[in-house]
């Protein structure tokens, strides 16, 4: 779970970079960059949830 979360963080960043390089129009570039950031936030939530679950187990 935690690994998947960090993988999502990395994938979101790569999506942002890909949008910058491949999309010449600002509108489509903005849409894909926002999608990349959304993927990153998903990854961040997943890592945070995993941490919370691990903490609860250890209590």
């Amino acid at each position: 779970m935690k690994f998947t979360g960090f993988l999502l963080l990395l994938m979101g960043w790569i999506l942002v970079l890909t949008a910058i390089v491949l999309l010449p129009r600002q509108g489509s570039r903005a849409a894909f960059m926002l999608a990349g950031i959304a993927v990153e936030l998903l990854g961040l939530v997943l890592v945070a949830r995993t941490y919370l679950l691990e903490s609860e187990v250890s209590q």
Partner: protein
Amino acid sequence: MNFAPQPFSEAGTLLVCALVFMVPLAIAGLALLNTGLGRSRSAAQSMLGSLCILAVAAISYFAFGFAFEGYAGLPQHTVLIAGKPWGWLATGPFFMHGLPLDGSPASLAAMLQIFSVALAALIPWGSGADRLRLRAGCLSTVLFAGLVYPLFSHWAWGGGWLAQLGANYGLGRGFADAAGAGTLQVLGGLTALTIVWIAGPRYGKFQRGQQPAVFPGHHIVFVLLGSMLMLAGWIGLNGAGSLLFAGIAPTGIVLVAVNTVLCASGSVLTAFFVTHYRFGKPDASLSANGWVAGLAASSAICASVTPAAALLIGMMLGGAIPFLAETLELRCGIDDPTGGISMHAGGGLWGLFALGFMGRFGVPVLGQLLAQLAGIATLLGFVLPLAYATNWLLNKLVAFHSGGEGERAGMDMYELGAGAYPEFVIYADEFLPR
């Protein structure tokens, strides 16, 4: 932001030096704030740790940090992606070899960052208060100041690919971060998050089925005095950073100082009123968090927004900081005694984002906003996993958490063998009736 650095006049060099010499006040202020928000039985370890981390950060940055970071105009490794050069790492020699320390812009930037990298490295130390071992903090600082920080700051400040987004892809002026909201504050705040994740909470903080225990800071006067000292340090940091990394004229320092104060003021007052409204009385530590968050945000916006915009940015941030700190603790199970993650990472990220649509760069807003988003995405998507990976590996070598004994006895006794306040100890036999 991409710009060609020009040599300063003698007066300009003196101005930058004077501003840089104010930065240690921010370090002292943050050390006081961290110590005040921790337990009294860990105060000496916290202050000694701050001193050691300052020293380790300065030496690590001198030894290999500057070599990896470089400065705009100095040689760098580049890769060609779709015909555009992406600078990703400087090619300078280690130990600042060959860098003339003569007042050139590159030497002034190196001098500023010997101090400022220590400021950023103190953020994780504060968040790991009351349980993080001293040697773990120092070793983590080596990785931070020698690897993670130089890599990102090369991209943003050293003429790397983030700075070149404007020239290469028409994204405004490229990623703009005048004085380190991203390179110092967010980087420090996200590293603090990884340290807290890896070290875990203090014992007894979270109990199953109960609200988190409250461990109040032991010296709120330290916290508030530290916050005031940080203002002086921050004016130096923002001023020197804006001259060296945003290319403003020396006369622009007036705007930088005014914006710094207004952003922090708007933030602290809003945090004050929000906590007053929510809890019935204002909360001193959350108000101090609001102040520092405003300072962190000001590092992004200080050179490029109007004073009214700086005040507005600070007020919006100050309203959010108490909720962010609460969410991290109650919903995410994050034990961050100093609130370093919310004030430095939260404040810095908000400053970078707000600069995208309120900054006066003379370019289309959408392009600049996208450049800022690219920087934010890099911090979250690359720097956070990198910081986690390096600290996770380090934790396998040197355990971060001191264990139950360290927390029971206090980090002072556990690591130093003596407390910060020996006269606070009350011996029962002295008070028995004779």
